């Protein structure tokens, strides 16, 4: 049954973001702020970088503010000024990516001014941004969100988060469904999904952790992955990407949202997160500077799969 999601606080959140942005820009605390702004289509929002206090009225927070803005602070994005402290508007899920980036020497906490957003959820798709946020249209990641109120930010608007209705955890259910299939059935499922891939690399480009200057898949000596968007190359690309994100991806699900071919990419990432949680009791995005489960070991690690 469709249930409405209460987003009435977003107006107050928007106001609070604007006044804090104005303060830190005019006081010179930050050189620029990465946030969300209104766009042309009805109900839509888009990322924006402002560096003038006069522009703060452009900033908003609405259910269409889906982007994980932390991608703009990675080294892959050279367009954002890196001089001085940068302000950034972050939802709880986005903050986990920032924490990961700090642990991977990509960002320093002292270079950031974090404007945390109390978040009741955002849309799963903004193909039609003028959509009401309900238990049907909310992003799958928001259904299992445990970080509606970001922790450790420099500023968080003081509003009370409304209670959100209990929602079905789509990823967990879908992973369980796939796990119950035979290998051949799973193969068929993913083959169908991956075959749609057109190698537009939107998944890679929006991913905060795909910050490599030269992606493994862009290298040709040797060619590790076929670059042609054929089923074989697509399969290899998505498997390798999931492996590279294992233990790092904190589940912003941007890859899945932006995929023009609707490939359920975050399912792979959630599956890996689930396995690493089970194997090594590790969850990404909570601690800076830890080595991560695949850069560390314990001599007692499970090896029941090794003969």
């Amino acid at each position, binding site marked *: 049954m469709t249930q409405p999601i209460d987003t009435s606080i977003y107006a107050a959140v928007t106001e609070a973001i604007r006044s804090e942005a104005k303060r830190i820009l005019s006081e010179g605390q930050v050189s620029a702020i990465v946030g969300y702004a209104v766009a042309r289509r009805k109900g839509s929002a888009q990322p924006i970088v402002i560096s003038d206090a006069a522009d703060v009225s452009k900033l908003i927070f609405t259910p269409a503010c889906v982007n994980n803005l932390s991608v703009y602070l990675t*080294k892959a994005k050279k367009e954002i000024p890196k001089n001085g402290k940068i302000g950034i508007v972050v939802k709880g899920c986005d903050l986990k990516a920032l924490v990961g980036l700090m642990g*991977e020497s990509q960002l320093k906490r002292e270079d950031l001014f974090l404007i945390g957003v109390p978040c009741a959820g955002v849309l799963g798709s903004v193909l039609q941004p003028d959509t009401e946020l309900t238990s049907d249209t909310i992003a799958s990641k928001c259904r299992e969100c445990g970080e509606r109120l970001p922790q450790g930010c420099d500023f968080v608007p003081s509003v009370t988060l409304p209670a959100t209705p209990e929602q079905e955890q789509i990823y967990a259910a879908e992973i369980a469904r796939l796990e119950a299939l035979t290998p051949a059935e799973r193969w068929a499922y993913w083959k169908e999904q991956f075959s749609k891939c057109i190698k537009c690399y939107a998944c890679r480009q929006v991913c905060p952790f795909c910050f490599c*200057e030269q992606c493994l898949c862009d290298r040709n000596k*040797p060619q590790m992955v076929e670059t042609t968007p054929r089923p074989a190359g697509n399969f290899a690309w998505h498997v390798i990407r999931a492996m590279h994100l294992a233990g790092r991806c904190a589940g912003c699900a941007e890859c899945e949202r932006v995929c023009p071919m609707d490939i359920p990419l975050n399912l792979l990432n959630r599956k890996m997160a689930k396995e690493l949680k089970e194997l090594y009791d590790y969850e990404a995005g909570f601690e800076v500077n830890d080595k991560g489960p695949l850069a560390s070991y314990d001599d007692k690690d499970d090896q029941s799969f090794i003969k």
Partner: protein
Amino acid sequence: MSRIGVFICHCGENISRTVDVERVAREVGQLPGVAFSTDYKYMCSDPGQNLLKKAIQEQKLSHVVVAACSPRMHERTFRKAVEAAGLNPFLCEMANIREHCSWVHEDKEEATVKAVEIVGMMVERVKKNRVLPTITVPVTKRALVIGGGIAGIQAALDIADCGHEVILVEREPSIGGHMAQLSETFPTLDCSQCIMTPKMVDVANHPKIKLYTWSEIERVEGYIGNFQVTIKRKARSVDEDKCTGCGVCMEKCPVRKIPNKFDCNLGMRPAIYVPFPQAVPNTPVIDRENCIKFKTGKCGLCQKVCGPGAVDYEQEDILIVEAVGAIVVATGFDLYTIDEKPKGSLIKGYGEFGHGKIPDVVDGMTFERLASASGPTGGKILRPSDGKEPKQIVFIQCIGSRAREKGISYCSKVCCMYTAKHTMLYHHKVHDGQAYVFFMDARTPGKSYDEFWRRSIEEEEAVYIRGMVSRLYQKGDKIVVMGSDIAVGVQVEIEADMVVLATAIQPQKGADTLAQKLGISYDKYNFYSEAHAKLRPVECATAGIYLAGACQGPKDIPDTVSQASAAAAKVMTLFSKDKLEREPIVARVKEAGCVGCFYCKKVCPYGAVEEKEIRDRQGNLIKVVAYVNPGVCGGCGTCQATCPSKSVELDGYTDEQIVAMIESL
């Protein structure tokens, strides 16, 4: 286009019996890039090698594949031959068609097909091989020895006797370590001081040894052959150059009642002191925490009485930097403190044995000081509580050791022997006394060790009770020790005058901090890890750092001295050449692609990855990338498998080479 030469060896009949070598030579001769292929009876023989060299020159070969035995057998042989013919040795690969093919298959057709594929795979690999120059690293022929116990002293003397300068750093005011505290040593019962002090003096007088006591390692930078070590010389408050060691200051010091750590707190010392009379250097140090001058600003007596004017209250800690090429770590051990449960430690205490509560329950080292002629009782065994001679004494072994439930599962190795020694010393000094020993089992491997242990029972009348003590409590001036004799199956109760606990050996406090400064690994107990338990027992995985003595694991004196000399020999091996040559199988960073996530650094077992700044011509920082120090890299390649963008590459095992092999199959 490559001009690859392929040489198929018959290995007598070892290969040719099951592999049709002519056919292999013919078929691989058809592979793209192969310019020459032949087979020969014994490729490793002189004529075989000459055939190879001649072909390289006459056929102008660019790469070579020798299909023969395992590369573990003859790779070096053929690479040398290739080098002699003017090619870089790393342009030669071996295809293993003996151990992995002819010897394990019987069917000639199958084995031949497999051999063709194996050779084909190596042909594709060798095409991607690059010229690798041998890596040379300059060597500073000076050594640092950390720790001035018997291990450090032995290593320092051996290296210095070879003519190399040694920096010996000791944290305490004097060298000597634990061995200087011992009374007699097993299994010969020679006096520890008598054999130890001459060596200490040798160190002090050695022209090649620079001794820094009352000093600690602050920072270690660099790598094998080229370390820069920052040493903190703590303020001694006495000028070592001026002091003559006359001792007047110590006599006049008004503070006299400070428990002396060297005597396990049984004896007392003044605030300006040397820990023991034979100390090296014989220069006192002021204990600033207890000195009236430092506490109140008054007194200053020692300075007034010092003839040479050596006492200097203004002295400060200073940092000095020494360049060395090798480091010997000999930080030794500490005894398990049984009444303490260090916070966060995985080791639980042994409060139930009364240590720290019952004054006459002492540890083995305290007993050594009581038995020592230079100790606080002048060698008389007297109870700490009332100074009476104990007539019944109980020794309990394995306190801490081999007790998994208490957090230590290892055996401390020396306790069986020193307890046997203690019973003898006791019997020699208290003729009418009786010694009891509770033990799990007696471990006496070592020359004359078991004879020694038996003597303590058979001649020196010690009563050994196999079993563990369950309870121990003070009753009047006696200590009641209750335990079980599992050999007989009865409960035992002894009213003892004194109890001696053989407490476990642990690494020195702060061993982990020092390891982190050195970049060496350590186990969960903080014992330092050797590179290989069997074959590289004195080397750390970190090149240029060596281990001696109990810092690596519990050891007795002979083992410690042997290991110290072995470590010295390793240092001397390193110092025997001006430059260190190493196989160029090392990781290299492709800086253009590196984004500085430092996953490589996180997984490198050798600490070989450093951070390097890339700047433009104006000096602006562009980015920070990884840099692999070729002197330190061990060549495992874990960094490359971990690097998301493959911006670090292990020479000799590049992705290109491996993918070429996979694609050939």
